[in-house]
């Protein structure tokens, strides 16, 4: 019965790691995989579909945890572009900062970024929950269709541009709102939602300190008043 399986990317290929995660987990009985010397390599632990824990001991490149299902992935460092892109379920936690497009088009599961996320955090999100301990950059939640983005720090320019049904909660300052995004009152339900997400993320903050940003729904249908915002 295997304990922790270790992959050293200084000696093995990312391809070998992914093959193992896709095909050999149940045979091996592994529940924990540790990845050494990631050194910014791309596509680490993509397409995992098993309740395994993957710990990445260092900096990850693009697409870490892409299309993740079920797995619990932890990055002990920063993550490059599009971490957990298209995540379906499971958790991806980045202990450092995440680069642009974090959780792009995510459908479900939870993505936690303990540091800052860069621009376009949650772009095109479709149901994933994202909790950011620090700031998010410009154009975050761009065309966000569903899911929740919780930002404990500040948000950059054009937050929630063209947002659909996703909701953004921001504790700090908001540089500017994007097209059709507007500030709404925090209800008790919102506070409960934020509290629950913060608890899942393991980040302490007062839910009442957050602001709710959601769609004004003025761009849901083609109309003359929309003024070139198409």
């Amino acid at each position, binding site marked *: 019965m295997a304990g922790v399986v270790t992959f050293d990317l200084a000696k093995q290929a990312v391809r070998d790691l*992914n093959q193992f995660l896709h095909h050999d987990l149940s045979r091996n009985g592994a529940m924990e995989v540790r990845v050494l010397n990631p050194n910014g390599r791309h596509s680490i632990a993509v*397409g995992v579909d098993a309740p395994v824990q993957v710990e990445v001991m260092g900096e990850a490149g693009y697409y870490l945890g892409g299309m993740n299902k079920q797995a619990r992935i932890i990055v002990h460092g920063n993550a490059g*572009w599009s971490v957990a892109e298209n995540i379906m379920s499971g958790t991806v936690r980045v202990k450092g900062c995440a680069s642009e*497009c974090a959780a792009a088009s995510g459908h479900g599961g939870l993505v936690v970024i303990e540091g800052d996320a860069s621009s376009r955090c949650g772009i095109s999100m479709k149901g994933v929950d994202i909790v950011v301990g620090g700031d998010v950059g410009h154009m975050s939640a761009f*065309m966000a269709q569903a899911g929740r983005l919780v930002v404990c720090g500040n948000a950059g320019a054009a937050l929630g541009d063209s947002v*659909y049904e996703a909701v953004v909660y921001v504790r700090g300052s908001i540089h500017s709102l994007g097209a059709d995004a507007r500030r709404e009152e925090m209800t008790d339900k919102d506070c409960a939602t934020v509290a629950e997400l913060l608890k899942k993320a393991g980040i302490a903050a007062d839910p009442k300190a957050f602001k709710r940003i959601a769609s004004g729904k003025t761009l849901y249908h083609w109309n003359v008043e929309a003024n070139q915002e198409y």
Partner: protein
Amino acid sequence: MDRPLRLEESHSFNARVIAWIQHAAENGLYEIRGLGAKRALPSFDDLVFLTASLSRYPLEGYREKCETKTVLGTRFAKKPIELKIPITIAGMSFGALSANVKEALGRAASEMGTSTTTGDGGMTQEERRSSKTLVYQCLPSRYGFNPDDLRKADAIEVVVGQGAKPGGGGMLLGQKISARVAKMRTLPEGIDQRSACRHPDWVGPDDLAIKINELRELTDWQVPIYVKFGATRVRDDVKLAVKAGADVVVVDGMQGGTAATQEVFIEHAGIPTLPAVRLAVEALEEMDVIGKVQLIVSGGIRTGADVAKALALGADAVSIGQGVLIAMGCNANYWVRDGEKVDAVPDYHKLGVAPGYCHHCHTGKCPVGITTQDPVLEQRLQPEEGARRLRNYLKTLTMELTTLARACGKSDVHHFEKEDLVALTVEAAAMAKVPLAGTDWIPGDTGG
């Protein structure tokens, strides 16, 4: 005495243009419609074949074999796509089309030994079940994109753009965002969907290379990766797609169709398929990847002659969208119920149009039940009938293709060459770089 009418139409401000301006003035919004460019363009019609003569010998029809087998994606994939014919079904979304149509496409394609392609709404069970070879599109919107469907796919097509609207994103109006479509696309029912025009997680060919690598990692390097774009800067784009690691390049000319987009895109963006094919082949030649990276061409491919000409110019296969829909009944004046023809003309009239002129896919009120989500209308196209008609169309295309091939002395449709063609107009000669019939002249190439 009544004055006789003297009607002098302006060429620039003709009836069509006047109607457009009046529509803009009344509504403050551009026109949105379906299908592809309607205006006259230099096309394959302007090329003809130099078939057998004293100097070149033909093959007998029927008795002497003409191979049509086509392999796509040999560059990196463990499992390239093997097709019986060089004609595939282009990406069209469930949402744009009904579920019955998607199933019909799959059935006919499977019988004919070719592939279908998903569209901007993701993969439906009907299509995966019925289509033996299914290409899964990865689009800027990523609606419904998920790893389970990705792994069920036989190939992946990264869509940078399409011929009808290069630079524009997908569009589906509220009347077609039914409950099922809405759920698949993670959108509220009934809203007007506006898709992104750029991918959310990469921009530019250098980052595309990393994305393609991720898609390979996700699918264990098994399946071919296509890159599709609308025909604009074709030479540069084909080279970049090759550099980014594409197994197959798909180039869609401006005649390519859509179920809904701004008319300004359809008619004024992108170049015709004719020069696009030639440019793409030149780019592949310059990169020395002919035979390693395959080329699929689409955008107004209608007949077997079109297929033959595309192959002669150097394409490995063609992809058809509009022609396939027309084969199944688009713009027909009837639909079929229990083997009987039912008059559809009144329903066209309700849309303010008549059969043969309809491009109203965007309304969702397709009189023949093809580009609709309406539960009543979609029954007008049953999968079996649709598959039957499509199968016939594909068979006829293949027969025309092989007829021309044999007449040119080819035992394999992939042996067509550009020297088998001449052009009937100066524009076509320049665009396709084949000589003007009766001369040695290729404008721009051999003087003048």
